[in-house]
């Protein structure tokens, strides 16, 4: 009760605050409570299931649950896009459990993106099953499952809860041990479908191609039941992932408590440089005040680094206040499962008052009802932001979410254009299961699982060319009418679903006895583990003593220091092939295949709290080469020369600035992390000659590309207009980190020149 009132007070305070001139609150959005839309349980639901549901107070279904039931009953694959806490698990548990009460041999496979989620769902499922008093057997099967339990699970389970990684390395390559399960497999449940986008989604699409191949072998044809958070294209994504027709559930009958969502933009402290107060410090301040008022608070940070820093800050704050430091916990991917379970439990029981999490907690883990959510920085996508906001206040009560914008361009765009966020549809999730490297990895795994028959297709692809290629490499061998796996290796082990490459570095702590403290994927390693870098782990600082590229190891020592480091890179692009191109006013746009050569050439030292630059260093890291696709803008010399009032250096910095803006807006349109898009400018801004017209590239930052360039090419109009909006509405004078980049890096004229270029490329709307 006390909490409710203090939350109301907090909301009122923010409301007043937002009305003041120059308020940092740029938006306050309210969604009134919504009533439930209920329908009777279908007559086909079996008596034991009906009474179990009744015992848990479920006598009717929400409208979307009924719609799902009816479609599944007709044998349609479905995708259910629902917000957090709308009863989506019943959408799949109901048909599966009912099928099981009719035919006890039925099997179902539940896929969750993380082990923690499977664990959580198992608990819920078990309580339903035990209520039914039936012999239904449900188990999780993942890396944590003890070896001695695995055989019995394979032989007895009706419902197996696992994750794509386990399906990939632990189940499909051993499918003969699962013969009974696959023969009786009727349902495949894919929860948190929206997570399977980008690289991960591209892999998972291929994983499903393999899964369907195995089901074919055992003569089963399971239905897919997918649940997704709100994204613009759930049906398209589901269709691309499972490569079968899917119907979308369009109703939503779940009730919802009253919700508030506020945007907070830290005040500008240096207008000329466009520097705002640190969003991390502001997050700490706001979160601490919620904490002090007794509200259980969830803080989301976007990176491991920010998480660790905020945990440190908030523990300090708690200690200064009356709270024990244990009441503030961190929660991210690198924590051990046992630790995470414990945090979840303490959060539910109220022992922990604040948790600082990365997106590990964004997914539907049941931590009970939280009062407030504070997001340190824009999570990168509209869908993900709503998902995080949904962690506050589940069904009945009032709740408040707060987005604290960083000075990152994307954040600034969002908080300054709240209507973009609140009115627009969420993003499109993109995947490209046809990325050649990803595809080849999975063709290898598929050949390991079952020989590939001549004339067989993998997804839409004929396999002949791929198999011949792998045959030349000695991995496959043609005999009779099929291709066989001829290598002693286990290909699934070499393929990580979460990255394009599975290469990674281990971090060895040599402060005392050498001790491996973590693993870092290849690309992150180059930008976080170079020599002299400061590496953060579990809130502790480590200095990188030695970076062993060949052995894929970094040796670090624990230090105390007041700065962290940030890498500087140098990128060159070569166009290999143009797929399509069109004139664009005086310039041209196109997309196609490129080769990227990238090298980390140095780093900056930045002070904690102020991010003040306190030093720099040179590095000579190995150059990386990558083939990918890029969207590009070509600026003819004639066009550039028409801007006689700028020097070539100024024109160049204008292009650099333009690149930064385009990346921001591009990632917004693509629902990807800004880091998933690379920016580069060709040399030759100051040279003449027709073959070297300067170009600006927005490239897909994954080897082989994951399908981000073509959509940018198609959406160029939105891309350029939104970029201009962002530039025009940015309050800085001549460029800041929120638009074209920090003044010191892009030069004084960057913003002006970028604006001029954009005006030429996009005729004014009302003209």
């Amino acid at each position, binding site marked *: 009760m006390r909490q409710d009132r203090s939350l109301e007070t907090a909301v009122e305070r923010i409301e007043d605050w937002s009305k003041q001139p120059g308020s940092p609150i740029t938006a306050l959005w309210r969604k009134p409570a919504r009533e439930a839309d209920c329908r009777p349980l279908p007559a086909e639901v079996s008596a034991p299931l009906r009474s179990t549901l009744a015992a848990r107070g479920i006598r009717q279904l929400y409208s979307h649950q009924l719609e799902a039931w009816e479609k599944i009953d007709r044998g349609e694959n479905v995708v259910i896009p629902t917000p957090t806490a709308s009863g989506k698990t019943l959408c799949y548990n109901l048909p599966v459990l009912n099928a099981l009460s009719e035919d006890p041999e039925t099997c179902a496979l539940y896929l969750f993106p993380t082990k923690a989620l499977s664990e959580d769902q198992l608990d819920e499922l078990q309580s339903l099953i035990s209520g039914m008093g039936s012999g239904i057997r449900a188990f999780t099967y993942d890396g944590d499952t003890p070896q001695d339990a695995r055989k019995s699970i394979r032989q007895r389970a009706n419902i197996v809860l696992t994750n794509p990684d386990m399906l990939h390395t632990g189940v499909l390559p051993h499918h*003969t041990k699962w013969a009974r399960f696959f023969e009786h497999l009727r349902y495949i449940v894919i929860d948190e479908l929206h997570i399977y986008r980008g690289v991960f989604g591209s892999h998972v699409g291929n994983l499903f191609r393999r899964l369907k191949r195995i089901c074919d072998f055992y003569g089963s044809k399971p239905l897919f039941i997918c649940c997704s958070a709100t994204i613009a294209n759930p049906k398209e994504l589901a269709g691309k992932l499972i490569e079968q027709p899917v119907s979308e559930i369009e109703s939503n009958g779940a009730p919802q408590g009253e919700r508030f969502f506020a945007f907070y933009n830290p005040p500008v402290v240096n207008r000329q440089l466009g520097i705002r107060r640190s969003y991390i410090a502001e997050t700490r301040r706001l979160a601490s005040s919620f904490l002090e008022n007794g509200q259980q608070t969830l803080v989301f940070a976007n990176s491991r680094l920010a998480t660790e820093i905020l945990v440190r800050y908030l523990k300090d704050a708690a200690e200064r206040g009356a709270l024990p430091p244990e009441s503030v916990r961190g929660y991210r991917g690198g924590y051990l499962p046992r630790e995470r379970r414990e945090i979840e439990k303490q959060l539910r029981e109220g022992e922990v008052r604040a948790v600082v999490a990365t997106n590990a907690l964004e997914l539907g883990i049941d931590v009970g009802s939280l009062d407030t959510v504070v997001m340190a920085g824009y999570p990168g996508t509209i869908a993900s932001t709503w998902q995080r906001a949904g962690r506050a206040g589940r069904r009945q009560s009032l709740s408040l979410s707060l987005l604290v914008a960083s000075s990152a361009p994307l954040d600034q765009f969002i908080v300054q254009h709240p209507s973009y966020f609140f009115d627009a549809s969420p993003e499109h999730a993109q995947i490209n299961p046809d990325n*050649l490297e990803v595809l080849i990895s999975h063709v290898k795994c598929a050949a390991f699982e079952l020989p590939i028959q001549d004339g067989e297709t993998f997804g839409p692809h004929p396999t002949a060319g791929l198999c011949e*290629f792998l045959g030349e490499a000695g991995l496959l061998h043609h*005999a009779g009418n099929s291709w066989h796996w001829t290598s002693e290796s286990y290909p699934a082990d070499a393929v990580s679903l979460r990255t394009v*490459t599975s290469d990674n570095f281990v971090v060895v702590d040599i402060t005392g006895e050498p001790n491996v403290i973590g693993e870092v994927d290849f690309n992150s390693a180059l930008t976080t583990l170079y020599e002299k870098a400061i590496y953060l782990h579990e809130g502790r600082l480590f200095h990188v003593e030695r970076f062993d590229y060949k052995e894929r190891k970094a040796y670090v020592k624990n230090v105390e220091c007041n700065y962290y480091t940030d890498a500087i890179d140098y990128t060159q692009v070569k166009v290999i092939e143009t797929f399509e191109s069109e004139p664009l006013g005086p310039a041209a746009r196109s997309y196609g295949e490129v080769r990227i050569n990238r090298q980390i050439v140095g780093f900056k030292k930045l002070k904690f709290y102020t991010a003040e630059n306190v030093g720099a260093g040179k590095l000579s890291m190995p150059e990386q080469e990558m083939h990918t696709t890029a969207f590009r803008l070509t600026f003819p010399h004639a066009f550039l020369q028409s801007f006689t009032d700028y020097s070539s250096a100024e024109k160049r910095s204008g292009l650099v600035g333009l690149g930064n803006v385009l990346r921001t807006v591009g990632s917004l349109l693509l629902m990807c992390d800004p880091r998933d898009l690379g920016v580069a400018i060709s040399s030759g801004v100051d040279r003449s000659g027709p073959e070297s017209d300067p170009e600006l590239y927005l490239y897909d930052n994954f080897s082989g590309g994951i399908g981000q360039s073509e959509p940018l090419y198609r959406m160029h109009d939105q891309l350029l207009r939104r970029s201009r909006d962002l530039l025009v509405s940015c309050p800085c004078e001549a460029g800041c980190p929120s638009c074209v980049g920090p003044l010191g890096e892009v030069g004084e004229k960057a913003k002006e020149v970028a604006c001029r270029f954009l005006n030429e490329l996009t005729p004014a709307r009302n003209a």
Partner: protein
Amino acid sequence: MVKPILKQDLERLRRQIRRVKGGRMDPGAAPVPPSVENRQFSSDSLPYFQQEQPERYDAEQVLDGEVMENQWGRYFLSERFYPGHQRHGDFEIAKLAALPGEWLGGISRGGIPPYDPSRWAFLDTETTGLAGGTGTCAFLVGVGTIEDGGFRVRLFFMRDYDEEAAMLAALAEFLQWRDVLITYNGKTYDVPLLETRYRLARKPFPFGRLHHLDLLHGARQLWKLRMESCKLTHLEYEVLGFLREGDLPGELIPYYYFEYLRTRQAFRLVPLFHHNVMDIVTLACLTGIVLPAFASPADADLRHGEDMLGLARWLRRGQAHDDAGELYRRAIDSGLPDESLFRALWEKAMIEKRCGRRDRMLAMCSDLADVRNDYRIAALEELAKHFEHHEKDLDQALRCTAQALDYKPSPELRHRKNRLVRKLTRRDENQR
């Protein structure tokens, strides 16, 4: 809207790989592209790229054996015969035919009925890897059988992957006429792997009706205390006195087979076939040594105390206390290293206790209580129990308990001590 595959993409990858392999990009100094593909291509795992086709030598030309055919197609069958008078190390092949079927009952504790040796099949596979999973294939399956005149090994071999179905069918048919399957680690490795192969070939699995004796378990019982390893080749040398020369290391076997598939040079298979035959002959001879030891432990021809101890422990687990006790005695008498000796003494003491021979149990526990060893505390505890419950000598029981507590305190001992003290006080009060 799928980009049509990908011919030019594959071509591009090929070029990239050639460049990496061509040495123009030095993988150590710098740009190995950070992808799985390129890493593999740049290393030794893909040595075959762009090589010429060498001259071909077919299996039937260079190997003993013939191409067989059944309704599933063709496969290759090779046979070796070892006449009875031949020795494998110290073991005479003729002894195999004389093994009584009843002996199977000993080691299997009655699980395997007494089938005549002519109904036994010794089986070992050679596979395309140790990774397991559906992509690992048994390309050669050797089966040894005992005949009147000696020992015969049949090698079922697929000259290529399209012969697997015929090979598996022929193997299944051959095994129909046998009742006992004898392997070395087959319960964990060969049989599950073959089960996968039969399932993939959609054929009934022929092993279900066979009684399976995995000799690894018996061999471990018998020799684990003495031998540093129970690997087949190690026992072959230590137990049979046979030294294999020029043998193929197991980890190279897949490589040899793949090389054969690529080059079609069947002479590359010679060491592989030999390796399999040797494993099977050794398996049979070791069976000839392990079986009698377990069938009739009392007259087992064992020369090492540790082997006797191993067998004694197996008997004890099977509740054969008299036989076990006897073997413990023989093991102790024959001289054992300290650690094994103390273990033997303690376990024998427990047998004596079980059989109601308290005096013998007491003597052994007293011995163990006197010197430093792993069983000292347990022995003192046994003594304390004995004095308390059988001799009713509470003072002596307390002394033993206190001594044990001195060596290593534990809540149980403390509890025992407190109870004894209470009992003593009560007794003293009653006496007063």
